[in-house]
């Protein structure tokens, strides 16, 4: 049954202001850090300053005598009840992975790792006492450089014997999805074009707004963990699986959570330590990290070397693509850790008809902060590589970068299209999105201006960057995840509860942390059941309220969680129908449901859903054998991913004297299928763009040669603000997805995935005529200037931060 709402205004497609914003923006809501429980104690962590060291002793005696200190523990004080931080995605059966204790007692493997915890009556007293814990270390050589680590010159975990964790390979020849790539490359070496490049995906820090925070309450019948997490359900499962507490005794609550970007898709040492300490003491405990701790020890993202070989015919028709990645796991294999590059494995071929494809990733352990998902997870890396390469191919052939893409992309009448990586793209129209984006930016005029500036030798050159991205999202078909050895499924769950008063409670397992689920999901249910938007309440983020779910990441909430909701709402209608028919004394076959009303076809008789709800609640007059409930559940597991795409164009001015960059214009035309709430979509796109642009231009986690994070504060880890960005122009074409009934595609990561190569392509395009064909990210003015000077890619970042806060400043005037 479809609920078409023709007469009343449809909610889907309206730019509803977000219901949740009042409480989120004013801060008058429940975050984890503002919870105060009776008798609650506070934790402070003692962290290793060394990247790799043996712990020779931990002296807690001075700390234990500090004012109001209740306890001080090191790893040695706990046994198995401390549990371990899990890796849920062993990408190969022989993956090498160190045990990840939340608080190791013998050896630390990155600077920032927790070695002891202080429990005190106030956070300030805990922090003061943490300074008194005396830990002695024997410093070990640290594996820091990714390439060197891959050569096993220094071992990050000596007992493992190697830093090489897993080698994961996809080969279209072997998989039967395409031809062998070596043949294509060999042929191109003799009579075609071979483009060989090496690109660096620098290390990034997710930098969510709300630092991570956890409260553990062991005083009730269920142990409760409140956490600023993206994944309350997975967290509950992992606690049960590793700490010996029965799953039924665990309740996890993610209150309002202030952003995550993948950075809170994790089970963290701090959560596990708080859990163990709370249970040990039988008292509620709280731990909230500082921003410095967050930058240092919350998981980082990206960090790859990408070796790429693209083969083509002389006219620019692509014939093969070979991708060899080195991916830095950091010190441990995080929950999804090694799987992140695998999420990119199917996307390097992107929208192009490569007949042959080979992908391999070697994941590598180092003595740096562990890495995991960060907005886009695997797909930004893939999109960057292929979109940079297509520009290089265009330059080699001597044609416009859009022309080379058009020559190779899947045409709109070729959908559904099975790619060389084995995925079936259901829908898309690259021609339409590209035409619209070109029109928005004034492509031909910009090219003319570029020519003029080149001809006159203008100090300020203009570049136009292209990115015709696609991605796979909506994690995900459980069967596919199973074939990839992922530890869980990809379904999502929803419940719809019809209240006696005709209002609706919707329960979703997709737990929002800033996305706007409460608004968008209300719109979907309002349309489906014909109730008012305001009458729908969306509940989530507490395993006692929303017992089933797989949480929010991978642009899955709408396409998987939203579809589960539709299915649950449809079941409500199905359950209401016989009751309505009974009350209307009509045959169920003669009823139709529209605009929230059941009506008897061909008559003016009818009954509103709210009336059916009340009658069901009263249960005075139900048909025989019908239960007194309209409430319904649904668990939805998609059969395929979905594939948003779009064309992003960036016009960048480059001051060739200083290397300074000035973005002139950024336009994008994304195809994300049907749109539930255009305002939320624009928020996702704008925010996503800034995050992707930030990788291209600003952000980089930098370590020095002893393994200290030198970009350890926002003074040196450069997050842009509104003052650093321009206003983007965003538009859409619409090719509804065929893999869910709403026809929607994910949009949470699209902007981030698409924008990075658009920006770097623009920078390179501006100075290509000066002998430049690559500039390493982030494209700092210095790198741009150096590239212009010597034709290289700009050189490495100096691994030192400038002091602005004087260490001697505290004492003496």
């Amino acid at each position, binding site marked *: 049954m479809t609920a078409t709402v023709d007469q009343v205004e449809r909610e889907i497609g309206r730019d509803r202001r977000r219901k949740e914003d009042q409480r989120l923006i004013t801060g008058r809501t429940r975050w984890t850090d503002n919870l105060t429980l009776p008798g609650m104690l506070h934790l402070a962590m003692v962290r290793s300053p060394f990247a790799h060291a043996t712990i020779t002793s931990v002296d807690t005696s001075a700390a234990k005598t500090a004012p109001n200190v209740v306890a001080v523990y090191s790893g040695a004080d706990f046994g198995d009840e401390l549990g371990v931080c899990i890796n849920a995605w062993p990408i190969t059966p022989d993956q090498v992975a160190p045990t990840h204790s939340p608080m190791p007692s013998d050896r630390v493997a990155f600077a920032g790792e927790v070695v002891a915890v202080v429990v005190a009556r106030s956070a300030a007293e805990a922090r003061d006492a943490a300074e008194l814990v005396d830990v002695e270390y024997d410093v070990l050589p640290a594996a820091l450089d990714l390439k060197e680590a891959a050569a096993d010159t220094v071992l990050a975990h000596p007992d493992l014997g190697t830093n090489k964790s897993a080698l994961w390979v996809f080969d279209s020849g072997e998989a039967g999805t395409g031809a062998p790539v070596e043949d294509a490359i060999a042929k191109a070496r003799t009579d075609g074009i071979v483009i060989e490049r090496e690109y660096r995906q620098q290390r990034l820090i997710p930098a969510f707004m709300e630092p991570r925070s956890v409260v553990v309450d062991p005083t009730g019948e269920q142990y409760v963990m409140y956490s600023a997490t993206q994944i309350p359900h997975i967290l509950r499962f992992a606690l049960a699986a590793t700490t010996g507490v029965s799953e039924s005794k665990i309740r996890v609550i993610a209150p309002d959570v202030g952003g995550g970007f993948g950075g809170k898709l994790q089970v963290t040492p701090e959560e596990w330590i708080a859990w163990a300490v709370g249970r040990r003491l039988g008292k509620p405990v709280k731990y909230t990290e500082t921003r410095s701790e967050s930058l240092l020890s919350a998981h980082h993202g990206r960090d790859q070397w990408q070796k790429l070989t693209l083969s083509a015919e002389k006219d620019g028709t692509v014939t093969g693509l070979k991708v060899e990645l080195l991916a830095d796991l950091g010190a441990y294999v995080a929950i999804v850790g090694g799987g992140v590059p695998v999420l990119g494995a199917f996307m390097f071929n992107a929208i192009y008809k490569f007949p042959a494809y080979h992908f391999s990733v070697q994941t590598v352990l180092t003595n740096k902060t562990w890495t995991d998902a960060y907005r886009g997870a695997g797909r930004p890396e893939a999109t960057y590589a292929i979109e940079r390469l297509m520009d290089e191919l265009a330059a080699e052939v001597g044609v416009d970068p859009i022309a080379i893409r058009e020559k190779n992309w899947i045409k709109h009448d070729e959908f559904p299209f099975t790619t060389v990586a084995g995925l079936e793209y259901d829908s898309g129209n690259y021609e339409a999105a590209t035409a619209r984006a070109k029109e928005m930016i004034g492509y031909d005029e910009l090219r003319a201006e570029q020519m003029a500036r080149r001809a006159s030798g203008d100090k300020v050159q203009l570049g136009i960057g292209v990115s015709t991205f696609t991605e796979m999202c909506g994690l995900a078909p459980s069967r596919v995840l199973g074939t990839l050895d992922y530890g869980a499924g990809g379904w999502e769950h929803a419940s719809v509860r019809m209240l006696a008063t005709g209002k609706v409670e919707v329960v979703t397992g997709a737990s929002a942390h800033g996305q706007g689920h409460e608004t968008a999901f209300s719109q979907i249910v309002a349309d489906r059941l014909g109730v008012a938007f305001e009458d729908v309440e969306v509940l989530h983020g507490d395993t006692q309220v929303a017992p089933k779910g797989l949480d929010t990441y991978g642009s899955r909430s709408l396409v998987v969680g939203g579809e589960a909701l539709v299915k649950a709402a449809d079941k409500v209608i199905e359950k209401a129908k016989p009751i309505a028919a009974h009350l209307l004394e009509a045959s169920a076959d003669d009823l139709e449901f529209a605009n929230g009303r059941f009506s008897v076809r061909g008559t003016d008789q009818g009954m509103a859903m709210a009336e059916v709800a009340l009658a069901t609640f009263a249960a005075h007059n139900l048909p025989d054998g019908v239960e007194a409930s309209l409430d319904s559940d649904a668990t939805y597991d998609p059969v395929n991913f979905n594939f948003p795409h779009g064309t992003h164009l960036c016009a960048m001015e480059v001051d060739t004297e*200083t290397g300074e960059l000035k973005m002139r214009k950024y336009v994008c035309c994304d195809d994300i299928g049907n749109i539930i709430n255009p305002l939320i979509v624009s928020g996702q796109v704008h925010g996503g763009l800034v995050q992707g642009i930030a990788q291209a231009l600003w952000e980089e986690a930098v370590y020095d040669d002893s393994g200290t994070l030198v970009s350890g504060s926002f003074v040196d880890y450069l997050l842009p603000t509104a003052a*650093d960005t321009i206003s983007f122009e965003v538009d859409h074409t619409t090719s509804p997805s065929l893999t869910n009934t709403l026809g929607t595609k994910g949009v949470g990561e699209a902007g981030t995935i698409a924008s990075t190569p658009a920006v770097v392509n623009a920078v390179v395009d501006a100075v290509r005529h000066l002998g430049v064909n690559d500039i390493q990210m982030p494209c700092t003015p210095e790198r741009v200037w150096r590239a212009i000077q010597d034709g290289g890619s700009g050189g490495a970042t*100096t*691994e030192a931060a400038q002091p602005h*806060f004087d260490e001697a*400043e505290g004492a*003496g005037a």
Partner: protein
Amino acid sequence: MIPAAFDYLAPTSVEDALAALAEHGDDAKIIAGGQSLLPVLRMRLNAPEVLIDLGKIDSLRGIRDDGDAIVIGAMTPHSVVGSDPLVAEHAALISKAVEHLADAQIRHRGTFGGALAHADPAGDLGGPAVALGAQFVIQGAGGTRTVGADDFFVDLFETAIGDDEILTEVRIPKHTGWGARHEKFVRIVHQWPIVAVAATVRVDGGTIAEARIGMANMGSTPVRARAVEEALAGQPATEDAVRAAAERADEGTNPPSDLNGDADYRRHLSRVLTRRAVLAAAGA
């Protein structure tokens, strides 16, 4: 982030503040706007036992015209300095530098004297101070002394202010009618400069009569581009003449290398920015 515990004093006169400094010696620290000191305390880079807050001493706040100089009280917030008409008229270089300093929140809390006393060579105010020949009025138990800009900045985070002294005000010789330009080079706007060049120029009938140029982040203290100043005197205010002179901007400098730029890049920037600043200041 939580600083270690400290005692807090808020004297209402400079004398009381000096007495408190004398009493607590090395254990005490003066706090002005706290925009540099608070991060130090919160990151626990250090832990003084006593903070002496100058915020309640009214005499340290305000800007006045004193004949041939503008006098800025040490505790005057950046935001007040930046919007002050006297400063704009007689020391435009300072107004322009303040406009670029950090962000609005920091400009409201941070003080003119605090920034200069902090002596971060990347600070935006050091360049204008040396360019304009600022005079620093420093008070101690034994009285008041005045130190010229060239002697005030000693090294990284180090000034001529003694352990038992307070910077009370800064006298800026008037440069009425001089053109001014602050060229600050950053990657994101709320950042300390990678290099900044502060130039002020007196133009007389198309000729540069005098030029004064101060630079940030080209050494362990703010530095004057004296070679450029000399080369510019008497030159026409033209692109070619200024370009030639600006080539000497990095002479005698010793810029740092860090993740925002290596020394050779900073040298290059100083030359380009000096040319741009001088040309703009000269109205050319």
